[in-house]
């Protein structure tokens, strides 16, 4: 992630997107990036609402609720207003270049398009949106973007920004694939600087020790505390053990990290409750 770029944060006023906004704004300030808050009116919803025989089924009670265009319009208006208020509040906390972009269409397609149009190199969104409360650990939008977009993704879970975790919890970077090492460490360093936290490198035993030493040496100019921990085994279980032993505030991985572990990215991302930054 370079300074002065654009960060797109996907907002739907769900709890996860609220947390995502806070982190995105912090990063934007740190890197002097423009924050583009993207609110997408899902056209699947708009179309469904126009069918007279379609109803909304409550996830809580299972009851059928009326669902029509007017209901949806009102709901979207409230969401927009809520998001605007959140942005205003976030902007009041410090200098921030931002704008709210409202679009309609398919969620992941519109997000990808907006990222392309704005030249964004990072998209921040919840691991799952409204479906988080219905058992989904990684929503369809996140899954699609993982597959389709070339941007880095920061996937947020829960409402709390990392600043509310224990202050000593480090930003953790999972260094597995030598081809991704530099990008992962660089992104993790940026996060650590933004949140004023230590940095912990969770390192595979396949990484060349001399390469590791030079990596750490490169971080010396930054005023952050860096530690390294070798993974006991190069597997999803090994990573799970490391994350459980030392919970972090955020986890930084690469696009190919999961492949190195022999699993899907979604498995790796859902391994932790912490936000996960997938670096491209």
């Amino acid at each position, binding site marked *: 992630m370079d300074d002065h770029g654009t960060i797109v944060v996907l907002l739907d006023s769900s709890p996860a997107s609220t947390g995502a906004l806070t982190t995105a704004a912090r990063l934007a300030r740190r890197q002097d990036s423009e924050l583009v808050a993207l609110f997408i009116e899902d056209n699947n*919803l708009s*179309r*469904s*609402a126009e069918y007279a025989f379609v109803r909304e*089924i409550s*996830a809580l009670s299972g*009851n059928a609720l009326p669902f029509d265009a007017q209901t949806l319009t009102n709901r979207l208006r409230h969401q927009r207003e809520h998001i605007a208020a959140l942005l205003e509040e976030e902007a009041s906390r410090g200098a921030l270049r931002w704008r709210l972009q409202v679009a309609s269409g398919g969620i992941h397609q519109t997000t990808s398009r907006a990222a392309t149009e704005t030249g964004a190199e990072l998209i921040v969104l919840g691991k799952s949106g409204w479906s988080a409360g*219905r058992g989904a650990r990684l929503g369809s939008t996140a899954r699609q973007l993982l597959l389709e977009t070339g941007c880095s993704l920061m996937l947020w879970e829960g409402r709390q920004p990392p600043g509310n975790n224990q202050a000593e919890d480090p930003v953790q970077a999972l260094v597995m694939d030598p081809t991704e090492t530099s990008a992962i460490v660089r992104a993790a360093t940026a996060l650590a600087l933004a949140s004023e936290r230590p940095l912990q490198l969770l390192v595979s035993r396949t990484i060349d020790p001399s390469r590791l030493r030079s990596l750490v040496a490169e971080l010396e100019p930054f005023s952050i505390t860096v530690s390294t921990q070798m993974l006991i085994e190069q597997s999803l279980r090994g990573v799970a053990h490391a994350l459980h032993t030392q919970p972090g505030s955020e986890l930084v991985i690469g696009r190919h990290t999961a492949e190195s572990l022999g699993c899907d990215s979604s498995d790796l991302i859902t391994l932790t409750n912490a936000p996960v930054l997938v670096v491209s």
Partner: protein
Amino acid sequence: MTKPPAPLDADMLYQRCDPSRLPFETSAELEPPAFPPGQTRALEALEFGTEIEDGGFNVFALGSFGTGKYAVVRHFLEQRAQRDEPPWSWGYVHNFDDPEKPRLLRLPPKAGRKLETDMENLFEEFRTAIPAVFESDEYHNRVEELREDFKQRQREAIESIGKKAKEKDVALVNTRNGFTLGPMRDGEVLDPEEFHKLPEEEQEAWQAAINELEEELKQSLQQIPKWQKEAREKLQALNEEMLWVAVGQQLEALENDWTHLPDVTAHLRAIRKDIISHVNDLDDEGSTVPEEILNQYEFNLIVDNAELEGAPVVYEDLPTHARLIGRIEHHFREGALLTDFRLIRAGALHRANGGYLIIHARQVLMQPLAWETLKRAIYGKQVRTESLEQLYTVFTPITLDPDPVPLDIKIVLIGDRMLYYLLSEYDPDFSKLFKVQADFEDTLERHPEHELDYARTLAALAQRHNLRSLDREAVARTIEHASRMAGDSEKLAAGTRPLADLLAEANHVAGKSHSDTIGPTHVETAITRQEKRAERLRERAVEAILRNTLNIPTSGERIGAINGLSVSQLGNFSFGLPARITATARPGLGQVVDIEREAKLGGNIHTKAVMILSRYLGSHYAPDGELSLSASVAFEQLYGTVEGDSASVAELCALLSAIARVPIHQSLAVTGSINQLGEVQAIGGVNDKIEGFFRICRERGLDGKQGVLIPEANLPHLMLNHEVRSAVAAGRFHVYPIARADDALERLTGKPAGEADSDGYFPEGSVNRAVADRLRHFQSVTRRHAFRREDENG
């Protein structure tokens, strides 16, 4: 003709204690006496009262002030208590069924402290073990697994619907509140406009499929609350399991330790049940049990008898209601007075339970409602801790109704005789509850065995008060002083308090003179100083006599006037002084006027004494006729009341002197009471009276004629001071014993009294003859006057 009474020898005026009879050099060699000498009756009563197992046989130890009742009772009970087993320890625990009624635990004496320690250790375990378990990896993993199971169940149900929907070309779309379904084409919801262009059958088929899926979705989603409930129950079960892991082992171990006490194990089981019920009340941070919950598991040990070797002996010096039956304290929190079982405090009855409680009767009677409280506890055989406010519903903050403590106790009240008899008379409960009276002697017989016991008592006093030991002579002098305090050469004062004060002062004197032991001079100095400090009023009275402000002549002769003797008591100090008694006599109608009585200054006993001497006059001098006498007797310059009969001999002699016009030696004073037969009877305070007259005579100068007439019956009571004894030995002062009124007359007038012959005539030249002659004269004068009045009346 009888001889006038001979004066006593000096050695008859004092009963010395021969130091050579005391088998020790100093009191340090003496063991304290097992029991105080001379109190057998009281000790037997105490023995009986403490042995009999009946709630009403409590003891009232009665006796004069300063007789050492408390020390004797305490010593006795402590000895007695050593033969008893230590009683139960008592404590309160929380009542989980009814928190306002704390439960009582009765424990073996040493078990109370152990249970207290066990419970404290248990809580420490709770404080550390519970957070450790809830912060363990296993717990977190299992919670995560439970959550994941639920989410997966939820996810699978929705994914299953989503899959079916996809097969039927229906889109399942997430909304803010749930889901909605719509016709799907190319992965997107079909534009409604295009949908309406479709053939009607196709639209209906799609609509039917959506309705069917909606129903299926509804059914699936309606399962979710049930799954949530199941998940919560599983989490609850997990939490309980974890909590049990944390506390169960310790609780089970404790229960095994306390199986011999079912009440304790029942309480431990109640704790187990309660703490599990509080699994959801653990603090969010750290998973600790909130203090207010842990507090409920404490053990409030109100009576700990672990250190006792025998039964407890408790003295309550301030026996208020609360200090007798305990109290329930409150603490102030957020404007309210709150309490719980931990704030129950024991009272003296709790502490003495299973043993003995000593209370001063006067103290308990002076405290509001304390006497009623004490009686209620004895009657009910239980101690129910409740405040006065609660009892009388004056002011009732939140309070408790703890289990009453069963009471098995002997109470010993200590008080004076007056109090005992007042309570016996006016409180019907008293005689039911305090059936044993331990009556303490004021004095004890003085004989060698008791003198040695007394020496042991002095040794014990010196030891108890950290005083120097007494040498043999000092012990002997103190024993002599004890006789003087008893007012009897054949008795010893039983009270230890005045002795302790005397020894303390003697010890001080000995210290000033750098002596290692207390010697006889130290004791003598202490006695003198004690007297000196108290004698201000006596000095003033002596001064008034010496300056003739009070007319007490000690030389010459006078008709119808005599020196009597009186005793004044000021606090613990008593002293004797002469009192001027005068009499007048003239013809009249057989009347002796008691001026003190007429002036309402005479007490009943004094009045009775004057009546007795009047009858003596009549029977002795006019046995067959009328007593034509109008006489009066008075205490001169006495401005207070007169009581007692000890001046009746003096009054009689003054009266006879006035009748017979026979002068009385003013160098003599007389004391003694007289009966109707003219016999002189013993009086009190004989030593003070003699010394009182001696003091006046000494100050004016002893001339060898001065002396005191005392009843012969008082001879055993003589314990006169050294000065009097010396003067008597030197023949400068005399003490005459008298047995009959005639003895007094002869010594006072220097003339024979005279005994009546068979015809009732007294010999010529005797005082009695002069009295009889004058009375006959009075009779003739009276008759003459009577005839003249009859003639005048025609």
